[in-house]
């Protein structure tokens, strides 16, 4: 008797153990966002342009339900007032629709989105990174917004590099939310003390300058230009700046191009800069730790990062311990990363976010109405004030008038973008480019060998049928 009941328990236990480890890897149940937060619609609307942009001021009291919006944490920390005022303006037209804004993390929002799609409870509006769009558009995850493009304010002047990430075969599946490009934030006091040029014409001038800054310091953790080894977006700036490419497509077949002479020239120059001026760990990337924190620790005299960084470096300490150092005020300046030829800045990666409506959304008109307000001209001005680049060329020129933002606005005009292949995400997930860079910086492989190996992996992944 005892032995028999023990059998059942033991089998159940074994199933439990096996189920645990397998369930962990492939669970497909939906889960609630731990960071879910409902934005209150208490504050008053500050976007008068919203209603007119939609072309329909009529109040729709019959619409009842909930509109679920997924935004990234950036909005919660950077521009919560804009989210609240957008919802307030939306409620004027749809007083009986609740808006539920849930904040997500970049690292796992797609895994969550997949599970919610499978469970049939996806959000009605989702923020997508521009590099994340291609795969989801190709697989038909988003509603076609082409016919309504004209209802978005100033959509005729959308920033081409950003808006293109939401377009597939001429159809609009995502609208541009904001752009982000990277420029150099540097310690003007240290660069001037070392006699380094703060207006370098070419990348070689920059290397000469940062060497002088490096020579002034005896701290072996100090970098004149902090560049973590896995910072592949930066290395690829050099590849495109030298006229190279990651991969190109022709007739549906992808050909990797990192081993070309131009691409190799770019990567070699990047490695030269890293070796001359950076003491950053080879095996880390630009977000572990966040680069601006190295500036705050005074262990870096320059970093290549986004437009909000100069403000973050001098911000007072906040309760999360992630603030900056106000004593550096007046010592942080910005410049564009110079290119190979005088007068031509290095080609820059244009990051940013789009907003899309998943096909499962029940009320596309509600989703669009909320998005129209959230990315109208007044909203974009608020985004610029928070250190982002706007979604239109009209506003980009205005942003360029601000000297602190000018290097960022300039670099957004000459930009590159990741290959729009369905399987590009596999290349990113397998760390092909960071691993390639690490092997070069460690001296494990020559530039020629490392790029050749990366090319073959990239071609295999991009041309794989599954």
């Amino acid at each position, binding site marked *: 008797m005892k032995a028999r*009941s023990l059998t059942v328990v033991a089998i159940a236990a074994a199933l439990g153990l096996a189920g645990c480890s397998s369930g962990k890897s492939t669970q497909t149940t939906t889960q609630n966002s731990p960071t879910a937060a409902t934005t209150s619609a208490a504050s008053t609307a500050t976007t008068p342009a919203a209603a007119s942009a939609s072309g329909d001021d009529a109040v729709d009291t019959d619409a009842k339900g909930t509109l679920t919006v997924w935004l990234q944490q950036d909005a919660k920390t950077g521009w919560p007032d804009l989210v609240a005022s957008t919802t307030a303006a939306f409620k004027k037209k749809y007083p009986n629709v609740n808006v539920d804004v849930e904040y997500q993390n970049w690292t796992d929002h797609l895994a969550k989105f*997949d599970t919610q799609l499978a469970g049939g409870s996806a959000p009605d509006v989702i923020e997508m990174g521009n590099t994340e769009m291609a795969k989801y558009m190709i697989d038909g995850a988003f509603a076609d917004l082409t016919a309504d493009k004209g209802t978005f304010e100033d959509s005729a002047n959308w920033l081409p590099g950003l808006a293109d990430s939401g377009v597939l075969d001429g159809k609009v599946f995502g609208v541009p939310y904001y752009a982000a490009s990277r420029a150099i934030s540097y310690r003007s006091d240290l660069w001037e003390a070392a006699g380094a040029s703060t207006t370098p014409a070419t990348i070689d001038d920059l290397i000469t300058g940062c060497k002088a800054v490096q020579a002034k310091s005896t701290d072996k*953790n100090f970098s004149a230009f902090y560049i973590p080894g896995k910072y592949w977006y930066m290395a690829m700036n050099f590849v495109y700046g030298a006229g190279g490419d990651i991969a190109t497509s022709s007739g549906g077949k992808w050909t990797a191009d990192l081993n070309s002479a131009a691409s190799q020239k770019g990567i070699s120059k990047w490695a030269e800069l890293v070796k001359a001026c950076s003491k950053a760990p080879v095996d880390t990337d630009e977000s572990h730790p966040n680069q601006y924190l190295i500036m705050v620790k005074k262990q870096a005299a320059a970093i290549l990062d986004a437009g909000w960084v100069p403000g973050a470096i001098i911000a007072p300490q906040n309760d999360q311990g992630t603030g900056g150092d106000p004593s550096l005020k007046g010592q942080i300046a910005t410049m564009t990363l110079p290119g190979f030829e005088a007068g031509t800045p290095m080609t820059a990666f244009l990051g940013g976010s789009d907003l899309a409506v998943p096909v499962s959304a029940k009320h596309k008109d509600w989703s669009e109405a909320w998005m129209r307000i959230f990315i109208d001209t007044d909203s974009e001005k608020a985004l610029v004030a928070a250190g982002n680049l706007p979604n239109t060329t009209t506003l980009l020129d205005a942003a360029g008038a601000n000297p602190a933002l000018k290097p960022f606005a300039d670099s957004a005009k000459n930009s590159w973008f990741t290959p729009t292949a369905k399987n590009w995400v596999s290349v990113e997930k397998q760390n092909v480019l960071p691993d390639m860079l690490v092997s070069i910086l460690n001296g494990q492989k020559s530039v020629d060998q490392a790029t050749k190996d990366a090319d073959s992996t990239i071609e295999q992944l991009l041309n794989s049928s*599954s």
Partner: protein
Amino acid sequence: MSAVGTQRGLRASRRRVAGVVPYLLMAPAVVVILAVLGYPLYRLVVLSFQHYSLAEIISHKTTWIGFKNYRDIFGDSQFWAILQRTVEFTAFNVALTMVLGTLIALLLRKVSGWVRLLVNTAMIFVWATPVVVAVVVWQWMFDQQSGVLNYLLAHVFQFGGFDRHDWFRSPVSGFGVISALVIWGALPFVVITLYAGISQVPVELEEAARVDGASSWRVFRSVVYPAIKPLVLIVMSLSIIWDFGVFNQVYIMLNGRPSSDYYLLSVYSYQESFGVGQYGKGAAIAVVIVFFLLVAAFFYIRQLLRIGEVE
């Protein structure tokens, strides 16, 4: 009805009830386990025979493709390399866990009461530390730039080579750190269980063996080990099951972006599923993991049954 008849009737019904009660008592647990673990496991197996990626998630339609996912992974040299790595990782960790665990358990018998209390307390703290917290703490300790370990090695013990040493540059050294973390986390359970077993070994037996001139090793092999063998087998089966499924220690330690050199089967399955969106293939890999775990679980159950028979 007479008093005797009533009693006889009561006894009979009690026997009938006694036959049903254990099953009734077990039922809630069985139902929960079937719902929470059995069903997902069933779904996992079903998924492994389907082509299930983003397009299928969106359209809610799936295609049955038979054994194609399995043929794909078994035909992929990367899978075999990862399987080999996982088996080696498991073998290394289990072996070291068992040896260290046994040694510490033996040591605990020799030390004074307050040292035993101290060691036990320390181990309970290790045991009580959630895995995610432990991984993050270890990540800080091994940090290249500001980790306490590099600081101690380079500045206190003056090994200059460890200044800004990158522990994760080579996968061998990286897995060394991960193994240390896994073993550190597994030791408390092993030590406490084995110590409980060892303390049951009658002292007279050992003394008798020593009087007969047996060495310490001989005493362990011939007297202590036979007594704790059933426990050792159980603890070892559990360790195999745990170490084969290690995920957090790799995934979190490497900031959620492990290079393919660091893939274990569990990480590989996760990356294929959630990283790349090939849920069918990811499920097939997970089924392979389940298969290996069932083998280990078989020995575990067999041992449990044997203990039941002895009693």
